[in-house]
């Protein structure tokens, strides 16, 4: 048991190291570096920089050193919580991210929670009452949810929120709370806004998980161990929750990491459409401006979240399934 857990954690760390190399390579891939886009920018403003000035700028920023030196320099800082300097914002990256990351985390994990808390009960209902009116309704809603692109869904919700509630559904705070310090009222205000991006980001995943839950549970309900438990006098509700639902939860749990990936990769677009003050729009800007350290830090954090999600689902599975816990292949 200890071995299995240690094994998964070790793998997560190795993955993280590999991801840091990939992240660093990715941000180097687009042609030109920050200095190039800076020079371009100046040129548009009518200022021509000399070759020497450009080279000197590269020197001060350390961009003339070999790639691997730059990489280790960067990773060394990251390990100590120093993600480098954003040239665009002229502030340390950790400061910028520190302001926006909590909202991203709140958004991602609320969406995850919303997805599973909605999908599991609906999936159970749909399986137990197969072909009932409710089952058909959820099936139709599910297909609509799966087929609608997030940005479209966001626009539709924006429109309806405006027409029916007279509120702007964009952003995560009302104007008066935008820069206010955290307080109970601010949290309530956040929740009043949060549901829009959560629903937008979570619907496709919820629809998918309902399908999975329904299919797996239908399968489990016909298994012999269910009949055997029924034959020993267990009541129907207890039977359902203790045996087939427990079994059907496992495949659902194993998709947590993957579901988190979907949420995180969908978030930037939704963030822009709904003008959310989280890291999504920041990430897109950083990529457009070749703001190397900011983009790198965000890629690393996003990948880190995905790895943490996978680790969570692995650890949950170990807790839930004795066959995995004991390292058997069955």
């Amino acid at each position, binding site marked *: 048991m200890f071995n299995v857990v240690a094994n998964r954690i070790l793998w997560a760390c190795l993955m993280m190291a590999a991801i840091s190399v990939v992240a660093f390579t990715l941000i180097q891939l687009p042609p030109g570096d920050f200095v190039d886009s800076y020079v371009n920018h100046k040129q548009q403003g009518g200022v021509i920089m000399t070759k020497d000035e450009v080279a000197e700028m590269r020197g001060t920023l350390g961009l003339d050193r070999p790639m691997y030196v730059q990489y280790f320099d960067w990773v060394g800082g990251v390990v100590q919580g120093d993600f480098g300097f954003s040239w665009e914002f002229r502030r340390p990256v950790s400061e910028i991210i520190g302001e926006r990351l909590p909202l991203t985390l709140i958004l991602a994990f609320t969406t995850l929670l919303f997805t599973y808390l909605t999908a599991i009960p609906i999936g159970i209902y749909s399986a137990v009452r197969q072909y009932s009116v409710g089952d058909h309704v959820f099936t139709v809603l599910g297909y609509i949810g799966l087929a609608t692109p997030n940005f479209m869904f966001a626009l539709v919700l924006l429109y309806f929120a405006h027409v029916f509630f007279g509120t702007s559904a964009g952003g995560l705070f009302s104007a008066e709370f935008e820069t206010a310090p955290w307080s109970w009222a601010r949290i309530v205000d956040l929740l009043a806004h949060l549901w829009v991006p959560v629903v937008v980001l979570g619907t496709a995943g919820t629809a998918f998980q309902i399908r999975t839950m329904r299919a797996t549970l239908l399968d489990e309900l016909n298994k012999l161990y269910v009949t055997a438990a029924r034959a020993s*006098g*267990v009541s129907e509700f207890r039977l359902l929750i203790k*045996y087939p639902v427990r079994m059907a939860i496992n495949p659902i749990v194993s998709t947590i990491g993957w579901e988190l990936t979907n949420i995180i990769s969908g978030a930037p677009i939704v963030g822009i459409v709904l003008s959310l003050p989280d890291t999504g729009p920041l990430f897109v800007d950083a990529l457009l401006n070749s703001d190397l350290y900011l983009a790198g830090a965000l890629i690393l954090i996003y990948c880190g979240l995905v790895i943490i999600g996978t680790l969570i689902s692995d650890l949950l599975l170990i807790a839930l399934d004795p066959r995995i816990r*004991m390292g058997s292949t*069955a």
Partner: protein
Amino acid sequence: MGQDNLLEIENLRICVDSDGESLPIVDNINLTLKVGEILALVGESGCGKSVTAQSIMRLLPKMLKIETGQITWHSPKQGKPIDITGLDPRGKEIRHIRGDEIAMIFQEPMSSFSPLHTIGNQIMEVVRIHRNAGKKEARAVAVEMLDRVGIPDPNRVVEQYPHELSGGMRQRAMIAKALSCDPALLIADEPTTALDVTIQAQVLSLMNDLQREFGMAIVFITHDLGVVAQVADKVAIMYLGKIVEQGVTREILLNPKHPYTVNLLEAVPRLGRIEDRQALVPIQGNVPSLFDRPIGCPFVTRCSKVIADRCDVSNPSLSTISKDHKVACFLHETTERIPA
């Protein structure tokens, strides 16, 4: 009906709904079982043995319905007859009977335990439901039962998961679970079919021993007449959802009347016959599909003694040929008919 009858099944007919049409899967089943008696239900795959057994505990899958007939359970614990066919299959009354008064073991020991719960947990569950017992007490019962079915080191096995046990051990654990509340009737649906031969023999002799010790009646489902000879007091031979011959085991095996029973016996390997170099005779043809039931006697398509214009026209009903022997065949018709 005799006073010491435990279970009476009368005119049982179970149908499946397919495309709005309702097709009988088993029909006209009449069985009685006395306290402590072992009845074997024999027949080829698909003839309706499991369905008959499941109906006794109202465990039929959704698509199958008891259409006519009555199952009466003379509950020794409640001291009164209970009409099982009249109970709600999800209701309280039947749940009191399941696991406590009537228990069941299944063909697949691999899948009849939940893989996510320990053996102990699943045995204790039955005890706690029916005995109002605390955790400690239930655990003690579980350990004792595992010990009685011959599982070594029961204190360790209660904490183990099903995948840690071999098939034979799991079937023993299943038997322990079934007997944990001392039921008056045990339904064993091919309990040894999935096990290899030496383990089969062990489990069979265990069941024989436990029957003597606990005194429960058993409905033993099998398609192996060799097993029937070893364990059963009475036997009912089923074909395509009907009982074609039934009676006391000795009488049926030594003096079979129905051509199907005769064929079944010829298909059993026996030592004496091998020495005489007599060949085993497989039964010709296959069981017809439910949806394609022959007109007349169900066995007419495979029988070697068909009476023309008789067997392919009408269906023979069970008639009593001696005190211990009934058969449904025109070759052995007597005047005293049992009404169908």
